[in-house]
């Protein structure tokens, strides 16, 4: 009885928070879901896409019972086994990622509410009525003001606490339940990101409801070193916006250069098209060591832990602007501005300043004072050769390189042959960790040598545009769900690449083939860092529309919510399925009918783990690069053996399609070539019309022939339902192959859905529009 009362109280509280009485849509089955509420959906996914664990370690070292050896069926002192321990680590990673985005959102929201008040209306422009697809779907709330976004943030906070609790020693003993919790954390991450980015768009007046956003400068060569230079690093835009305001108000914009690294750079260019993107995360240490930045301003997330040390070495001043990373620096937030400036300039002191306005003023004034003293020249090729001659080719640099380069070969080529080609190539591929230099017993300044060799080329990048417009969804919804636009491919994530040029090549390949290509974060930067023979990069060659053959930069890390948001919009705007607190229906629609696929080729961060896992819960498969095997977990099927049954909602019957679409939910590829053939396959959906399927298979086959060296894919027969699915160009060849293997045609499913194939409160009829 007491339990029932508690449930009723909780429900009433949820109804109050989401204003259930507002009848914009009926409230679905899972408003503000808690851990168990979507568990059955997760278990259905995990039945087909089983967790695949690659343990990073044989042991568990999390509590004082341990270290516990988990090899050969051993369990830890708390009873945990190796699979469950991996799942627990995955959950922790997803929680870190989700916390980063949500805390970013909370901070920026508080800052903007202070500026504009909680009642500031959410208005994303006349092309966007469905402003918050993730928040509406997950919470059931239609946020109307900045203050409403706090409801979403507080909901995520609460869920994070419960999820983190479950990772305590002992307790949860099922890897599947830990995975369900990780999927929950991933979904929450998209809510946190969405609250953050909507707040930013509304509060800072970022571009919205427009595709044609400004083109801005990209590359460290674009920074004008003759001016005072301020470098912003991280993700939180409060400070960079204040810098822009200060420069504008004081008529200094022509006199000071503002550049950024990582997502803060993308945010800065959404606020002002005069800001510049230095580059992705992999250029951070390299750029810090050039000493070009007079003032470095860190905020949060992807910033180096040794920034104060690097800043001091390079002669740059440092201001830590957020509590997430204060580096043990004195907190000068309350100190008089002129006194801070004096100590920074005269005593070369670094400070934490947590007031963005004050930090901005200090940064500009300090940069202008110290820039004239900055040593702006780098070592010559001759000096670099002299340094390289100290190398004994001991191989220590090679041992520690996460990208497995023979740095020593690059250095000895300079020493012996005065040839900088190899080190230049290595610089391009370098992920910028600096381990090689740290390990060198001869203390050779490898980054300095790289500076000499590195290309000073610059490019253009289209600044992030935020949400996909409702009008665009109306235009492409039918083509995506029928398959005639062969897929939506999102290149997202960080820059821990095996080869930095891969992203630009992949974007080009799929844009050319009329997929819709979406980019964000560091991937959006490196996508632009390659020019064709005419000197154009992908932003200059392809339109910025969410349409076949378009390349859309949604923005920073938190703008990834607009990619999941676009999938939800297709279900809601195009297919007219109610989204309010209706997560299962949205996710089911995506996995059954929206040919979308994410590629996180250089993912390194826990945020990338959370984003990808959130996409997975929503039914979007994700391909990861080889470094990402270290995330420990994938979601794989065994295509010829797993459960490919769906409900045909038209006839209310369960049908065994035997069709592995999409084949995996989280997958790692070793090479770019393999990604090229995996993308078209993961965009196949059971709902494809014969015409759509033929288009998708045309790309699958032609990419297979191009990158895998000819022939037909060995699993092609699994995706051909009837003769009409075979692309015309390959008709003859495919028919011969199908005859050889005694292929039999299958009836396509009228209206495929997973609803009805697992225990759920959602009726099958709710997927029919």
């Amino acid at each position: 009885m007491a339990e029932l009362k508690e449930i009723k109280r909780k429900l009433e509280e949820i109804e109050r928070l989401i204003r259930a009485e507002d009848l914009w849509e009926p409230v679905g089955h899972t408003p503000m879901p808690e851990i168990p509420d979507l568990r059955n959906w997760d278990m259905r996914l995990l039945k087909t896409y089983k967790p695949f664990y690659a343990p990073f370690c044989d042991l568990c070292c999390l509590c004082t019972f341990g270290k516990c050896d988990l090899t050969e069926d051993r369990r830890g002192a708390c009873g945990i086994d190796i699979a469950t321990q991996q799942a627990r680590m995955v959950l922790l990673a997803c929680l870190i990622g989700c916390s980063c985005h949500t805390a970013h959102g909370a901070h920026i929201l508080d800052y903007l509410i202070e500026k504009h008040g909680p009642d500031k209306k959410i208005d994303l422009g006349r092309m966007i009525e469905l402003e918050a697809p993730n928040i509406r779907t997950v919470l059931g709330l239609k946020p109307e003001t900045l203050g409403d976004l706090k409801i979403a943030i507080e909901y995520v906070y609460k869920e994070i606490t419960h999820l983190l609790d479950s990772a305590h020693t002992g307790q949860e003993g099922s890897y599947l339940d830990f995975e369900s919790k990780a999927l929950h954390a991933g979904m929450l991450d998209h809510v946190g990101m969405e609250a953050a980015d909507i707040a930013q768009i509304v509060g800072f007046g970022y571009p919205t409801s427009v595709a044609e956003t400004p083109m801005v400068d990209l590359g460290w060569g674009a920074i004008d070193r003759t001016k005072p230079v301020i470098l912003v690093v991280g993700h939180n835009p409060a400070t960079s916006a204040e810098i822009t305001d200060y420069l504008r108000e004081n008529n200094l914009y022509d006199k000071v250069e503002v550049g950024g690294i990582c997502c803060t750079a993308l945010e800065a260019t959404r606020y002002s098209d005069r800001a510049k993107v230095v580059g992705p995360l992999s250029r951070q240490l390299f750029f810090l060591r050039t000493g070009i930045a007079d003032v470095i301003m860190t905020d949060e997330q992807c910033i180096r832990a040794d920034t104060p040390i690097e800043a001091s070495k390079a002669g740059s001043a440092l201001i830590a602007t957020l509590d997430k990373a204060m580096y043990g620096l004195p907190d000068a937030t309350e100190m008089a501005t002129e006194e801070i400036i004096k100590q920074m300039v005269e005593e070369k002191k670094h400070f934490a300043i947590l007031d963005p306005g004050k930090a901005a003023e200090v940064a500009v004034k300090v940069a202008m004072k110290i820039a004239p003293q900055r040593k702006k020249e780098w070592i010559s090729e001759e000096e670099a050769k002299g340094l390289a001659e100290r190398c004994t080719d001991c191989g220590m640099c090679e041992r520690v390189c996460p990208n497995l380069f023979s740095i020593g070969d690059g250095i000895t080529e300079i020493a012996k042959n005065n040839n900088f080609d190899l080190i230049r190539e290595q610089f391009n591929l370098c992920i910028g960790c600096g381990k090689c230099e740290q390990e060198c017993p001869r203390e050779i300044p490898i980054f300095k040598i790289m500076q000499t060799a590195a290309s000073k080329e610059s490019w253009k990048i289209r600044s992030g545009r935020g949400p996909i417009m409702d009008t665009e969804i109306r235009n492409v919804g039918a083509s995506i769900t029928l398959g005639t636009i062969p897929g939506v491919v999102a290149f997202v994530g960080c820059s821990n690449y095996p080869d930095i040029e891969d992203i630009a090549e992949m974007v080009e390949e799929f844009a050319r083939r009329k997929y819709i290509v979406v980019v964000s974060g560091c991937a959006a930067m490196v996508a632009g860092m390659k020019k064709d023979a005419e000197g154009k990069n992908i932003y200059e060659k392809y339109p910025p529309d969410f349409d076949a053959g378009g390349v859309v930069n949604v923005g920073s890390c938190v703008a990834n919510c607009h990619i999941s948001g676009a999938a939800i919009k297709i279900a809601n705007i195009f297919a007219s399925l109610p989204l309010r607190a209706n997560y299962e229906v949205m996710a089911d629609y995506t996995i059954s009918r929206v040919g979308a696929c994410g590629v996180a080729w250089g993912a390194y961060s826990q945020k990338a783990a959370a984003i990808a896992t959130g996409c997975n819960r929503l039914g979007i498969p994700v391909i990861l690069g080889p470094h990402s095997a270290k995330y420990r977990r994938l979601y794989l099927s065994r295509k010829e053996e797993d459960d490919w049954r769906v409900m045909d909602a038209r006839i209310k019957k369960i049908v065994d399609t035997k069709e592995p679409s999409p084949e995996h939910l989280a997958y790692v590829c070793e090479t770019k070539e393999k990604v090229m053939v995996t993308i078209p396959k993961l965009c196949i959906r059971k709902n494809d019309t014969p015409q759509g399927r033929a288009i998708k298979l045309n790309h699958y086959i032609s990419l297979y022939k191009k990158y895998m060296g000819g022939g037909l894919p060995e699993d092609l027969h699994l995706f051909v339902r009837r003769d009409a699915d075979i692309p015309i160009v390959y008709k003859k060849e495919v028919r011969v192959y199908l005859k050889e293997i005694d292929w039999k045609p299958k009836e396509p499913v009228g209206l495929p859905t997973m609803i009805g194939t697992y225990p759920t409160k959602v009726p099958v009829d709710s997927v029919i529009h």
Partner: protein
Amino acid sequence: MSATVPLHRVNVLTGIKSARQIEDPAEYGKLIKKAKRPLLVLGPLLLKWSLDGRLLMEYAFEIAKSASIPICATAHVKGKMIEAGVKPDSEYDVVEIINALKDPDWIGVKKEGNHDLVIFFGIRSDFAEQGLSVLKHFAPHLKTMTLCKFYFPNADYSLPNIRKDEKWKEFIETLIANLKEKE
């Protein structure tokens, strides 16, 4: 059990169960010959790496031929194999073949049952090490072996770190000669 530190430090020893380091190609040969259903998994580095001007892929073919070991081509290896006139017995990506190998009841690439010895060759070392970890923990029914010039802690049998390519070449060539010898 071995205390050897891997050449690529990304493959740090992170546990208590690590590969037996074998320097004698004859011992490697014996282990391969003893296997009932070995499998050779080939990675894309074989298309890049060469020893004395001879592509490593050619060595791989010779190993497969000498001991009648079926080949699984991963990544984009298949196309180059076909160009070289060798048809792989199967084509899976690394995570796919490992996912299948994990299952003791899998029918194997020759449909004769799962493999008892899986030899990895030409996969980037950090990626291979993670894959080997999967099999170390979840495939007690099989043994794993590596042929690259680095020490792989998560394998059952691994070469030591070999600094000089000539020494690696000698190992591979002696192994091939050994495999060609009739018992």
